[in-house]
């Protein structure tokens, strides 16, 4: 088993935390002041209002629910939802927006900012491409099949190409069988309830994605949260679960399911898979691994975290992943033993009530996966996987040399850089766009209040020159 690569999560220095809290405090006070001005009528109110005919209905939104949106988010929301008008490749064209009234409304000027370096899209292996040759089969399928399917998998929507893709995914991952779904988010929210229910226990990592949390809630099982990637916390909960049973009645739990992700997209950390597999075997729990960001992006041949740690795929009970990130398409899959997949074919909410995957999207995944596996006769796929690993190593070491605080594992292509203060984060994003680099910034409430960050997503399609330009610009901006 290869040694796990180092991970680092430095804590912010004290003065930074204090300044951040102070900053938020001041902005909140201002917010109350402005609300007062709006109520009194001294300030123009831009917010949409309820209809006259429905003014005496119970208000649809409570004032405090929208406080954050009105007063804090509105001022800085030009950093998100930036529309683009080209392929989301290594460079893209961002549409220019202006706002005459401090971001309450936007209008497009019609001009575009061309050739912005794309450090925000999840394009790990560079399959977001529009080359006519590469996309020939996709175009053929569109011509032959059309776009939609107009039915569910169990009714008239089970196409032969879906079954072909399912077999390919199973052989890609090295498992017995797999099933595909039309949406990555829905793969989690519609299948977890089919696997666990009342009387079962879910042990979920602190930083799990919303789709996992929604699926766990909809299932009706009890949810206990363990600290992020912390094996002592997990073991303590497992012991407690097995020894004490369900709360109050002390009946034994029907099943225990551990839910983790391969790479956590906000932290850039990689799950401690060998430890978790050892724990799960000891306590007879089941493991649900969500490889949304790690499939195709880590591992010597792009097979995900199981390959990265050299584990046997049959040790993972439920392998889930999405096709949006590394394969440049849309949708998700669940793979594992044949009994598991057969159960999902008849009990998954998606198979019975939701539309099947669109044929051109299926073809795109087929061709991307064949490319990575080398089944199309070229080594393009393998080259891309290596290129991504190269780019990750190079970019991280450069930023570390320059003295930035980076989070996460050295192997993960997601690179979060801590900026802490909300004002800094906003200024950073705007300044980078001026210098034709598109980055993603995240702050409260997606991250803890003192840990606002910028996140770079590397791609195999980025050239060394682009990475150099990004790191030097970052360095310039910081100083």
């Amino acid at each position, binding site marked *: 088993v290869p040694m796990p690569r180092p991970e680092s999560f430095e804590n912010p220095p004290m003065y930074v935390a204090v300044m951040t809290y102070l900053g938020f405090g001041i902005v909140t006070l201002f917010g109350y002041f402005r609300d007062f001005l709006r109520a009194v009528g001294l300030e123009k109110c831009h917010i949409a209002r309820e209809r006259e005919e429905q003014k005496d*209905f119970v208000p649809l939104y409570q004032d405090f629910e929208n406080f954050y949106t009105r007063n804090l988010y509105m001022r800085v929301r030009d950093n998100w*939802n930036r529309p683009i008008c080209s392929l989301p490749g290594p460079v893209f064209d961002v549409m220019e927006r202006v706002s005459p009234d401090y971001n309450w409304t936007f209008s497009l000027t019609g001009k575009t900012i061309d050739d912005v370096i794309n450090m925000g899209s999840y394009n790990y292996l560079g399959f977001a491409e529009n080359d006519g040759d590469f996309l020939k089969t996709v175009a053929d399928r*569109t011509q032959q099949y059309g776009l939609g399917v*107009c039915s569910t998998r169990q009714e008239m*929507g089970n196409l032969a190409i879906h079954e072909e893709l399912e077999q390919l995914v199973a052989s890609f991952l090295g498992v017995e069988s797999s099933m595909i779904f039309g949406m990555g988010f829905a793969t989690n929210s519609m299948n977890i309830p089919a696997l666990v229910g009342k009387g079962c226990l879910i042990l979920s990592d602190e930083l799990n994605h919303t*789709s996992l949390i929604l699926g766990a809630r909809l299932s009706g099982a009890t949810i206990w949260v363990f600290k992020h990637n912390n094996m002592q916390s997990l073991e303590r909960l497992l012991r407690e679960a097995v020894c004490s049973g369900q709360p109050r009645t002390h009946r034994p739990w029907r099943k225990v399911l551990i839910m983790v992700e391969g790479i956590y997209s906000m932290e850039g950390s990689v799950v401690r898979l060998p430890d978790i597999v050892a724990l799960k075997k*000891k306590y007879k729990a089941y493991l649900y691994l969500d490889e949304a960001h790690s499939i195709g992006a880590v591992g010597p041949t792009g097979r995900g975290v199981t390959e990265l740690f050299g584990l046997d795929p049959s040790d993972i009970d439920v392998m889930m992943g999405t096709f949006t990130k590394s394969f440049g398409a*849309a949708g998700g899959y669940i793979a594992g033993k044949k009994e598991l997949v057969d159960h999902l*074919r008849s009990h998954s909410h998606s198979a019975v009530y939701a539309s099947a995957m669109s044929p051109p999207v299926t073809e795109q995944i087929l061709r991307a996966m064949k490319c990575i596996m080398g089944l199309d006769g070229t080594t393009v796929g393998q080259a891309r996987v290596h290129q991504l690993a190269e780019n990750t190593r190079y970019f991280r070491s450069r930023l570390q040399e320059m003295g930035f605080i980076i989070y996460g594992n050295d192997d993960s292509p997601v690179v979060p850089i801590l900026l802490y203060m909300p004002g800094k984060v906003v200024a950073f994003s705007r300044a980078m766009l001026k210098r034709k680099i598109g980055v993603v910034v995240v702050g409260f409430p997606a991250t803890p209040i003192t840990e606002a960050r910028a996140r770079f997503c590397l791609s195999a399609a980025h050239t060394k020159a682009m990475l150099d330009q990004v790191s030097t610009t970052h360095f310039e901006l910081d100083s």
Partner: protein
Amino acid sequence: MLFIDYSSAFNTIISTKLRTLGLNTSICNWILDFLMGSPQAPAYHLVLEGILILWIIRLLFSKTYKLQERSDLTEKEKEDLIEEWQPEPLVPPMSKDHPSLNYDIVTGPPSHKIIVNGKECINFASFNFLGFLDNERVKQKALTSLRRYGVGTCGPRGFYGTFDVHLELEDRLAKFMKTEEAIIYSYGFATIASAIPAYSKRGDIVFVDEAACFSIQKGLQASRSFIKYFKHNDMEDLERLLKEQEIEDQRNPRKARVTRRFIIVEGLYINTADVCPLPDLVKLKYKYKVRIFLEESMSFGVLGEHGRGVTEHFGVNIDDIDLISANMENAVASIGGFCCGRSFVIDHQRLSGQGYCFSASLPPMLAAAAIEALNIMEEDPVVILIWFRFFIFMYDLVNKYFQIDSYSAVKSVIGEVYAPALHLQLERSSGSRDTDVRMLRSIVDYCLERQIALTLARYLDKEERFLPPPSIRVVVTIEQTEEDIEKAASCIREAALAILK
């Protein structure tokens, strides 16, 4: 009062002795002053303080006591428990010939002439109402989009996943439906299932029709609100529930002022193929101050003069409906869904709709196909009128066959005259759902043999709140000719006679 005088308690300390111990003079003086200068104190005061100090010392050193901890389990016992515990298998065992395990395989496109299990059939099972699945114009627009944008968007709407195509589609949908704003989701099921929990939270009240589809049920489950079901399309039952709620409100007016209320109905119900009485609902809305959410997946593109859905069909002002949600996977023959309404309502979902914020956006080629489908719908509304005729024809035909037959009324047709997706149910159930399902399946197989593609309406038996009876789904689309419909009707009749005798 008993007093204890201390001033003479330490008389016997000789100051010189202290000095010989090596203490500094000033310290000695300070100590002597302290000891001699102690004030007189009542006895009870000292006793109480003494007891208090002893109690504090006891508390500090005693073990902490937790009520929940099973402190009697030794390590060995824990190890034994861990070894003995046997969880259930991850999935329960399933028989190989479980009916929902074997899917019908469609080779090639699911268009009008569909190849099911190797046999070419006429398609009466896909929701391709307006025939856009085969439409050349739609395909060409999608190909142009493919050549420009590739396939996937590689990100959610907030992080460079917003394309100009998405903005255009939202704009077009809003204009088509004559509302202020529209918002797109990348999957039809996730649309209403994300919209409901964005507005209705714990403590709010939702009145839902019993025949509501599964995605509405999941949305309600995620919202954690109080759910009150009223009988299908029964306005009196709904009014009864609303009156009860009104009485409840008068008992607790403060709580009533912050409890939001919603009615959720579908325009054309997928489970029963009939229409909701929208004008009556709007009257109830203003009488009891409840907001209406309308799910129009089946009726979008189908009902109304221009295909705008059940609001156009009944002539209701669209601003009276707070939210209209529909998926683009039926009439529009693409993938995805949208919600439309006033900006005041819709804009909230851009930050609170989970399926919008936390999921990748719709692939641009699918959005482009939807735009083109909308274009065609706007250009040529006559398209809508044409298949009205077909539905009525189909409905009459099936009814005609079943009325004149002596073995008549073995099956009944469920659905409105102008519903594009009908259900055929057994008139008399055999008593067991499994047997009914098997009989209906043999009818479907019989028809597949004779080149008519039908399907059983599928449900999750254990998950549905009000499980509809087993039925065969028959879909009428614009591409079917009159001969096709006659052939299908006679085939179904033959099958019924052969199998249900």
